[in-house]
């Protein structure tokens, strides 16, 4: 019977007939969410020293507005959004700007980046807070106000929220999707937030719905969070907002991927080359919506977030943490790490990364810190060759053929990898999770993607440089011709003057021929020069730009070597 049901499920899955309420493929890792949901959201003692990376979001670096030594108040703007896509940084507490310098940040690269270091004065004195009467203001005004709110997507993507609320006038947004799926194991920050602050989240929903002009709001929650779903249902019943609906979806990783969740809730598949807004849907995480509410209704910019501290620590728990707080303080608050802790993961175990140090600060993208130990996450056994079992293809939520992509990535057949839609890979990690040969598939894809992007950039830069150079040569040639023509005209003019007395047809045909020859020679010279210069397509680059190119190249080479070393180390096929 079991076998028969199994077959029916497989038949459905392989014809893409999986019901609308499940993700195609997907996996069911052990959830480990119980551990961190037994206690209410806690708060941390104020840290003495806060380190605020300028790059906590997707987009441009913000422009620093403060100077070293300056005293700032809680909520004060430290750096303002710069350019189109960017997010501001605020002081999470009152204190003195100690330094503006490079420091280690929580990033997979492990490289330091520019940070503002703040020493708290322990007073936690708020600056001016001005609530915004959003109900009586129009969209452009509100979006302008939002620009320096510092709010970014708190689900982990950290994309500036104000950009996502800027709607395309041509497409009416029909549905606001609230992402509360929280499908990654261990992470419970959204779960706890919904249990404790559901009504406040809905106030954020109201604002987002107003800004987007969305008719309805669908709240997607996985069925492993019944308390959160119930809290949200209660809040919806008490809310003044119409057309709110809590939809419980089956627990299945990665249902919390925005495009997957949109399909689960609306049945619509967002085309690969479009944004969800093009089909009338916008998606926000619950914590982001709460931040909108705090900003508009209380004038509080984005200063903190809920972080799950779990794994191999004494008391796993969720905490409300100010941005810039060192991870060590969070670990200490959770009773410290237990024996055998050998690593700390930021994010979930499926898509997270190892922290370069526990001294790095909590940032806007930091939804979860997991103290890792061998008994929790065993180091993978050595990789075996791919046996083409296609388990990876069975679990891929976007219907890729990971076994082919692996083959192409490994052999650096990058064009082929692109043909097989490498860039549709969402790096959810399901393929690696399911691989019986323990091949680090996602790492191969990340590597191939970065290689392709680097190649494309290099090609673009080279094309641009070549175009510029060709144009320059053309201009030089044109100027030379113009000069030659002027000279010729002058000479002809002088001759006509002279010829006035002697009305002959052509006084000096030899001189004419000589001039023509001179012009022809000039053109020839220009052509020869152009030919000689053509291959050197980056000659006229400014020294600063050149230095930057070299820096990028060096970094890329280093990264490439590191990845190759890592990949080859884990693959006995290449142990020659």
């Amino acid at each position: 019977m079991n076998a028969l049901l199994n077959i029916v499920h497989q038949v459905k899955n392989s014809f893409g007939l999986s019901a609308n309420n499940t993700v195609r493929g997907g996996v069911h890792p052990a959830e480990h969410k119980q551990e961190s949901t037994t206690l209410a959201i806690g708060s941390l003692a104020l840290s003495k020293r806060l380190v605020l990376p300028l790059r906590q979001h997707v987009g441009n670096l913000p422009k620093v507005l403060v100077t070293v030594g300056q005293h700032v108040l809680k909520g004060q703007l430290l750096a303002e959004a710069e350019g189109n896509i960017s997010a501001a940084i605020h002081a999470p507490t009152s204190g003195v700007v100690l330094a503006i310098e490079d420091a280690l940040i929580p990033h997979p690269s492990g490289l330091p980046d520019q940070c503002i270091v703040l020493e708290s004065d322990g007073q936690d004195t708020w600056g001016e807070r001005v609530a915004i009467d959003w109900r009586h203001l129009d969209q452009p005004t509100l979006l302008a106000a939002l620009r320096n709110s510092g709010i970014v997507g708190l689900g982990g993507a950290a994309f500036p929220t104000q950009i996502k609320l800027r709607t395309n006038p041509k497409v009416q947004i029909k549905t606001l999707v609230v992402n509360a799926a929280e499908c990654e194991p261990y992470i419970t920050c959204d779960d706890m937030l919904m249990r404790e602050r559901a009504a406040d989240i809905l106030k954020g929903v109201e604002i987002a719905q107003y800004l987007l002009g969305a008719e309805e709001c669908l709240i997607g929650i996985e069925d492993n969070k019944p308390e959160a779903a119930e809290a949200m249902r209660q809040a919806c019943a008490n809310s003044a907002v119409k057309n709110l609906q809590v939809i419980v979806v089956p627990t299945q990783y990665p249902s919390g991927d925005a495009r997957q969740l949109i399909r689960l809730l609306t049945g619509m598949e967002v085309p690969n080359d479009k944004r969800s807004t093009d089909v009338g849907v916008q998606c926000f995480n619950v914590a982001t919506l709460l931040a909108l509410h705090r900003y508009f209704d209380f004038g509080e910019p984005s200063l903190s977030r809920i972080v799950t501290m779990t794994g191999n620590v004494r008391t796993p728990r969720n905490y409300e943490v100010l941005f810039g707080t060192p991870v060590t303080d969070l670990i200490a608050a959770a009773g410290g790490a237990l024996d055998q802790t050998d690593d700390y993961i930021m994010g979930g175990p499926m898509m997270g990364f190892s922290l370069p140090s526990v001294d790095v600060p909590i940032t806007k993208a930091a939804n979860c810190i997991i103290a890792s130990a061998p008994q929790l996450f065993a180091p993978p056994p050595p990789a075996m060759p791919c046996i083409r079992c296609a388990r990876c293809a069975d679990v891929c939520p976007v219907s890729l053929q990971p076994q082919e992509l692996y083959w192409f990535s490994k052999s650096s057949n990058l064009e082929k990898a692109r043909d097989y839609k490498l860039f549709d890979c969402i790096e959810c990690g399901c393929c690696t999770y399911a691989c019986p040969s323990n091949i680090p598939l996602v790492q191969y894809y990340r590597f191939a993607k970065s290689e392709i992007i680097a190649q494309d950039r290099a090609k673009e830069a080279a094309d641009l440089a070549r175009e510029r150079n060709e144009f320059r040569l053309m201009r030089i040639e044109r100027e030379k011709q113009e000069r030659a023509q002027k000279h010729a005209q002058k000479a002809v003019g002088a001759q006509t003057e002279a010829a006035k007395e002697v009305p002959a047809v052509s006084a000096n045909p030899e001189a004419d021929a000589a001039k023509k020859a001179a012009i022809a020679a000039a053109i020839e010279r220009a052509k020869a020069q152009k030919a000689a210069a053509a291959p050197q397509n980056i000659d006229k680059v400014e020294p600063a730009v050149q230095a930057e190119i070299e820096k990028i190249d060096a970094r890329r080479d280093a990264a490439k070597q590191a990845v190759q070393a890592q990949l080859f180390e884990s693959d006995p096929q290449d142990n020659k």
Partner: protein
Amino acid sequence: MSRSPYLSSAPSVSVIMVKVMLALIPAIAAYVWVYGAGILVTLALASTTALAAEALMLKLRNRPIKPFLMDGSALLTAWLLALSLPPLAPWWLVVVGTLFAIVIAKHLYGGLGYNPFNPAMVGYAVLLISFPVIMTHWPAPLELAQAKLSFAEQYQFIFGASLPNGVQVDAISMATPLDYLKTQLTLHHQVQDITTASQFGAFGAKGGELVVWAYLLGGLYLLQQRLITWHLPTAFLGALALMAGAFYLVDANQFASPVFHLFTGASMLGAFFIITDPVSGPTTPKGKLIFAVGIAVLTYLIRVYGGYPDGVAFSVLLMNMCVPLIDAWTQPRVFGHSK
């Protein structure tokens, strides 16, 4: 650089291989019941040869020996080949076939994961072409044989080709139903008369059909364990039945019933254990269907019109050649793409 995901669920390659071998146990038991314990000698012989050849090739190719020897793939190849050979096949036949499968079909093409052809079927095809008489000489099931050999006598026969005094080879062997049907049809007999012969059972071969049921049982276990997907066995058995059914409807005197085709020869072994080899087969769902249907059609054509009684091995090898093309043609629609 991140090393996520930090979690893994997958059974290792060796666990997969062990489970497939576990699924073969009922069939081996049925073999022992029907043909005697001699099959165990064949299995042991093939296993030893395969492991030795695997170790030697890994050493020659400078590959780590232990992890690859432990993956179980060589052992599984040996078992599948042993179960394809006639029980009581002479020892050197088993050794030659296994060596060919492991050394040439597997390692010379790059080892585990790289061989374009199913190694067990390469070994089988080589033996069938080189030694057609021995390969089509099957022992009679014990219940039909005029002389029953004990295990010691079977062992003697495998290693020394010697039979107890007074027993002739004919007394312990008989033509398989597929073979018998083929020769009798050329003599213008009709199917319903031919199948009254003693070696025919209720579904396929007398005795042999028990082994077939055991393969089916093992196959269902593989499906239940999600070690294989439904595509290959269903498409293969379905297409074979459809094809045989169509011919049977046209002329039941000349063509055997679909049930007969499903229950004789290597149909069931092939459906669940041979064509499901992931390395040499296609990976896309649609590709698997095409692959399996192709094998079924070729198998039927070889059985009915070809020069050999059965055609599974050749069909598998022919379709193995088409795999890269099938895979390239049957790429599924990616999420968010229109086609």
